[in-house]
């Protein structure tokens, strides 16, 4: 009897609170791994999310000159839009000096961003091989890899970007 009271009282007291805390109508539709794969564009610095395929800077140069040069200039310099090359040693003094080669901490970000957003007018038109090739070209013109180096899901995350060690986290997860 004593035991019953000990349990019954808190149960009555807390039941409405439990319902309130768990108050969603639960209308989410389950996703299969195949469905998730069609939506998942996230590429992580460790290479997670990188698709199959490969390319090098020689192939990338051709694509760059056809699709990218108009906005980003010859070899990523002096175009209408962001500089993609150069600026080494200027990142504390010049905004335009912050390029892929002088500033970006992770090479995987290049693949991720091209796949999401480029070319500006018609994103989504590049094949994975073409994106790897463009990534290789941008790394090559910044003197980070050789012209014939194959870039793929294994080699890209292994590249150490020149400015990577100069990044710290302001936010500290608890």
């Amino acid at each position, binding site marked *: 009897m004593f035991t019953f009271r000990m349990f019954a009282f808190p149960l009555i007291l807390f039941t409405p609170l439990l319902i309130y805390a768990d108050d969603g109508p639960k*209308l989410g539709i389950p996703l299969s791994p195949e469905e998730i794969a069609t939506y998942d564009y996230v590429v992580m610095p460790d290479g997670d999310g990188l698709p199959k395929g490969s390319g090098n800077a020689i192939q990338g140069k051709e694509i760059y000159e056809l699709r990218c040069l108009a906005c980003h200039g010859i070899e990523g310099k002096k175009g209408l839009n962001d500089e993609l090359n150069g600026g080494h040693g200027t990142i504390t003094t010049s905004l335009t000096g912050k390029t892929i080669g002088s500033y970006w901490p992770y090479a995987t970000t290049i693949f991720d961003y091209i796949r999401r957003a480029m070319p500006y007018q018609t994103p989504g038109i590049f094949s994975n091989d073409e994106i790897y090739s463009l990534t290789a070209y941008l790394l090559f013109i910044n003197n980070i890899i050789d012209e014939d180096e194959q870039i793929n899901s294994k080699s890209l995350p292994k590249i150490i970007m020149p400015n990577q060690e*100069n990044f*710290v986290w302001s936010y500290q997860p608890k």
Partner: protein
Amino acid sequence: MKRLKNLPHVAANGLLDRRLFLKTGGMSGFALFTAKVTSQEREKWSLNPGVGMGEYGSPSQYESHIKRSFGSRLGTTGSGASRTPIQHLDGMITPSRLHFERHHSGIPDINPDQHKLIIYGLVDRPLMFTLDALARYPTVSRIQFLECSGNSGTQAILPEPRQGSVSDLHGLISCSEWGGILLSTLLEETGLKKNAKWIIAGGSDSAMMSRSIPIEKALDDAMIALYQNGERIRPSNGYPMRLFLPGWEGNASVKWLTSLKVTSSPAMTKDETSKYSDTLDTGISELFTFPMGVKSLITSPSPGLNLHEKGIYQISGIAWSGVGKIKNVEISTDSGKTWAKSALDQHVLPKALTRFRSAWKWDGSPTTIMSRATDESGEIQPIREVWKVGRAANSYYHYNAIQAWSIDEAGESSNVYV
């Protein structure tokens, strides 16, 4: 007129008691102009019935000059920013049509019936939500500001102050009543794995803008915002849904939100690494500098809003902090020598714009006016020189230093550093 002579001064150079306007109520009637009625005549708009009702309201034709200014990046039509004309607004709410914009590939035209939000990654149950489904979830609404972390950036980097309106200099700040579903409600339904530490939010604009958000923020006050000032979010603000992270740099509140991938670490996306990272004078750059600091701006008088003659004016402006509530705003009208607290409007809400007002008797001589806000955590706006300590010369995100306006004998304001 006797009342004017006896007004209490609270700081040097004519700064009056902050409660002046509350005490005297309709002082504009005698201080600003006196209408002389000579005979019983009707104004022309009183002679005939006006136009009828309309399905959508619009401002007076005489207010048509109150608009956003904007610039697009070369070679693009939709990458750039538009700025809120904050010097022409009052109160704390930014009309939705004047909310600032920052887009990376224009505004997508999203059909809400085809839009989906998916949550996957380190969850127990990967789920997809339609807008019809989300309409049945419990919602909240909160009045909170949104500020681009690049706001006021030219103040940070230009050696000489750029001349322009408050909007030109600081217009990437707005405040709305945001309504929607707390992200924590949806994460409760998906469940979280033990190593869930970050969420990669993705938009469905053509740039598929993405940012990594700490799980602590997602479970705290992050919202899937569906409404802005009572109506569905406008396309320029993320229709049909955006992530809204109160108090944090605007870029992280991903618009046109369509995917949330729960991960154990950040994705290091283009926007959180190559942009929106803060470089120090040592060459070290800080990632994930999320909260927006305490800040205030005198919006009137300000460049373009001139004083016409000596006399009594209201100094009015906005203050905000990404940490919480504004505790106080101090005003100086003598170049920072003496300060007095300004009166805060009734609504002092956390992470929202707070309107301040002071009464000032301008004696017609040149001076410099400025405001200085303190938030509930005790943080006080720095002067520019202090803000720049330790930062690289080109560092311009999160600029929140004190803004001063120099007022000349003609009553014209200009931007000065103090």
